[in-house]
């Protein structure tokens, strides 16, 4: 059992355990914290796959921004005051999730490219440089790059418009 397999097993166990705890815990704040542990496990898996940029972006964006946003959003709602939250129909949700998981696994195992090994990446700065050049290439991903900036602008403007309490308006 090589070291990589050991680390993969440990991080897989961590991800599954914290994912289960996240959906089954009663307190919302604890759910947010288990989510952070799950995201950290996913970052470790990314690092195992030698995509260091994605691993570190996972930590910076997901844990550093989105998890904090989720904690703030939980505090904003009244559910944080009354800490317990029960979903009585959790069996239905579990069955639906199992069906979805079965569908995804079926799709992965019947995908013809799924069985071929991908070429190993050169690693290091050439990967990130390749991402950068591809993002700016007109035949590459330039249009999605600019559209993503428009998407971010739309998200920003929309949420500020909704979230801001304007003076003179009663809610």
């Amino acid at each position, binding site marked *: 059992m090589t*070291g*990589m397999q050991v*680390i993969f097993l440990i991080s897989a166990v961590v991800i599954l355990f914290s994912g289960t705890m996240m959906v089954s815990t009663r307190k919302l704040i604890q759910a947010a914290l288990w989510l952070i542990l799950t995201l950290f496990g996913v970052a*470790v898996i990314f*690092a*195992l796959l*030698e995509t*260091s*940029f994605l*691993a570190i*972006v996972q930590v*910076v*964006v997901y844990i*550093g*921004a*989105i998890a*904090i*946003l989720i904690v*703030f*959003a939980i*505090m*904003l709602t009244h559910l*944080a*005051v009354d800490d317990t939250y029960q979903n009585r129909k959790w069996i239905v949700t579990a069955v639906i999730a199992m069906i979805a998981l079965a569908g995804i696994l079926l799709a992965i195992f019947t995908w013809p490219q799924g069985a071929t090994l991908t070429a190993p990446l050169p*690693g290091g*700065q050439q990967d*990130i*440089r*390749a*991402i*950068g*050049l591809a*993002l*700016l290439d007109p035949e590459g991903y*330039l249009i999605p*790059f*600019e559209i*993503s*900036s*428009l998407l*971010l*602008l739309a*998200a*920003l*403007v929309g*949420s*500020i*418009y909704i*979230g*801001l*309490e304007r003076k003179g308006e009663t809610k």
Partner: protein
Amino acid sequence: MPHEWLYLLIFLVISLFIPAFAIGMAALLSPKKPSPLKNSIYECGIETVGSSRIQFKAQYYLYALLFLVFDVETVFLYPFAVAYNQVLFFGVVEVVLFVLILAAGLAYAWRAGALEWV
């Protein structure tokens, strides 16, 4: 896995252990005499009034949101920065457009008063 990330993982685990070990040692060395008065919550010297949750200002959420948008934008800009030496001038123009669109978002937030600390 490249050995660098393994070192990083080991380093993070060790840097979690060292303060934990120090606090553990302090827990051994320190006296333990809990009393209801010592364990009560601090509220400027008076008894605590009300629950310990407060009405949360929406302003915090707007700051977190603004940070999220700019963080994602910065993460998009990092591959460009790494590839900067091989990018043509047209690429720089594209990135200028990207940044200007998001700067327009910041200007909107400024004018709408979302940046005021209420």
